[in-house]
């Protein structure tokens, strides 16, 4: 059940938790955002192992954020854990519904359909004056198990929740990748017909993994919404999806560490570029991505040692 890799994950989580009291506010927000994007990347990992690249993952990220916000404002739910659950379920359900259609498509059609759905959501949110249109609306600070949080302690608590959630979800994905079902994705990518001839319907797996990736992105969106205290339709814009795809490509499909590492690296480069070259940060970010992809075409996860001789 628990492998050495899981212990490493728990250790990393413990280190981050220990560092919480040392980290200033800006670093807490930055690191928490990086972890949240890492969670989205975990969902993308599943789909990319099956050979699919969704260009609309921001849809679920945005839905999760709005679910957390509306859950606070309309349903009066203030507990952070309940809001995360609500966001995950809402986004997962949306993923399941969209999956009914999208499960049959592959390649560019899958990518574009995914993007189309996300732009529909974006358009609806933009037009909705009740939801603040492009300004979005504020998400109040959540409570944790009844305790209200303010100021920097609130940030520390949210960061700690993010760390724990990331460790939990990463462990979950890692365990899933070790099961039989976790092998079907790569099998579909390598030879889809053979999978059906082994008695498993490829569309069915893709549907499930798509819904799961939606759930993960939704949880991430809710975390960021509560951290930043604001949601807006930009969370669902295609450029946000593009950022997630960048992370996933940099990560590669080897395993969870690539996904989490890539999210951290890109967030760090983004922050450094922002500081160092406020007018040219996009150039630096794009250039860094290009250099890293050329150096590691199979992604960062290809750096992990392999016990198996592969082509």
């Amino acid at each position, binding site marked *: 059940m628990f492998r050495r890799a899981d212990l490493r994950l728990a250790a990393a989580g413990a280190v981050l938790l220990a560092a919480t009291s040392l980290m200033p506010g800006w670093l807490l927000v930055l690191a928490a955002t990086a972890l949240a994007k890492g969670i989205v990347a975990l969902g993308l990992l599943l789909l990319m192992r099956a050979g699919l690249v969704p260009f609309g993952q921001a849809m679920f990220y945005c839905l999760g954020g709005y679910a957390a916000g509306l859950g606070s404002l309309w349903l009066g739910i203030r507990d952070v854990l309940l809001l995360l659950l609500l966001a995950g379920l809402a986004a997962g359900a949306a993923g399941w519904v969209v999956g009914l259609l999208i499960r049959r498509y592959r390649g560019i059609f899958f990518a574009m359909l995914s993007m189309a759905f996300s732009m529909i959501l974006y358009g609806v949110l*933009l037009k909705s*004056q009740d939801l603040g249109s492009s300004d979005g609306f504020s998400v109040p600070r959540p409570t944790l198990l009844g305790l209200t949080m*303010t100021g920097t302690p609130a940030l520390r608590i949210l960061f700690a929740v993010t760390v724990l959630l990331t460790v939990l979800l990463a462990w979950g994905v890692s365990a899933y990748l070790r099961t039989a079902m976790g092998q079907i994705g790569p099998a579909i990518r390598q030879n889809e017909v053979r999978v059906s001839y082994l008695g498993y319907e490829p569309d069915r797996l893709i549907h499930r993994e798509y819904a799961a990736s939606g759930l993960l992105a939704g949880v991430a969106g809710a975390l960021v919404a509560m951290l930043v205290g604001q949601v*807006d339709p930009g969370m669902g814009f295609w450029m946000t999806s593009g950022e997630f795809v960048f992370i996933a490509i940099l990560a590669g499909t080897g395993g969870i560490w690539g996904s989490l590492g890539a999210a951290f690296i890109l967030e760090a480069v983004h922050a450094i570029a922002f500081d160092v070259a406020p007018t040219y940060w996009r150039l630096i970010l794009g250039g860094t991505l290009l250099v890293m992809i050329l150096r590691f075409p199979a992604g960062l996860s290809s750096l992990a040692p392999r016990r198996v001789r592969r082509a």
Partner: protein
Amino acid sequence: MRRLSKITLAAAALAACLQAGGALAQEKLRIAVVTPLTGPLASVNVPGQNAARILAEAINAGTLPAPYSGRRGMGGAEVELFFLDENGGNAKQVSEFRGLAERRGADVVMGFGSAATCLAVAPVAEELKVLTVMSTCATPRIFEDASYEYVFRTTAHTTMDSAALALYVRQRLPEVRTVGHINPNFALGQDSWRDFAAAMKSAMPATRVVAEQWPTMGSGQYTAEISALAARRPDLIHTSLTGTDMEAFMTQMSARGLQEQSRIVAPLLELAINRMGRQIPEGIIFTARGTNGLFAPPSALNTWFTDIYRGRHNEMPVFTAYQYAATLLALKAAYDKAAGPAGARPATRDVIAALRSSTFEAPGGTIRMALGNGHQAIQDTAVGEFGFDRRANVTTVRNVTVFPAACVNPPAGARSEAWLRDGMPGADCSGIVNR
């Protein structure tokens, strides 16, 4: 050995990053300017950047004209501006704001072109107790939805535009019966139309709306909407299209002659007049978020400002430039007052006390921090018709009406949306001047 030194180096770097502030902030007053440096809004906000740099230099050199002549710096300290790109999403802006306060030693943060960023950052500024002065962002919501100690805005908000334009139409175009609009379908456009429609309903209750067009923001292609408006022939058309969208609309619309059958009211036209100049049809009614630019009352300050700006950038400053200049002048006045004659760096709360409810001179006229408990500015504004002097090759404005601040800004404690709807109660319009 090599490995150990790598670890030491990494640890030292980490420690350096985690140190709040730094030795830099001791002498100079560090002002962070958050403004779109990249992306679609950059072109509209570049004049703001330009003006900020001009003002900072002049403040440090002591070359400002009256009433700011005499004292160099702000409260005796040299001003250092540094810029941050207002892009990348709210989460990025919030974490960058914290970085400004905790890592980069910003004493003051100013700028902000986008309403979404303003709304996201205001609570954080308050939490971190960082003096934040918004120069541009337009939504009334900031000080109507919440109250702040550390957040200020040195420009009036868009309610003023809608009130002034409606009153102008009532006075100059009393025959208007039907109104149409074309506004981009996002917060800015939606809010602008809602406010203008409410103001028109109050000012001219006999008018009715006959055409509504909501193109997508950034679309750039308005043929269908123009056809629809041309078919309905409203007496008046309102548009808050801005930047390149505005330019595209003007070009496409004038080719169809839309301005011949409908009078056009464009609150954000002023931002495009330098780029478009003679391509804008005559007679379009516009304003400048205050008596800025072509509407500025003559003063030594305005002459100085426009001369320097034009000398350096070969064009007249538009209202975003005026707004950034106003912010820096407000800060200078507050810092000078709080520092007192001794010249020691005043505490932030003293600066806040000096800024709150203050009145100061800007190139566009007098600005009073009268709303939001002394944190939100009001100012006079003016509305006029666009003209282009072909002989002199300059943009001009005709049939100007100046509206005093108390006429077109909601009174303290009122909510803008309701104020416009209810007929602008409490407005004092006794000082209107027609030129």
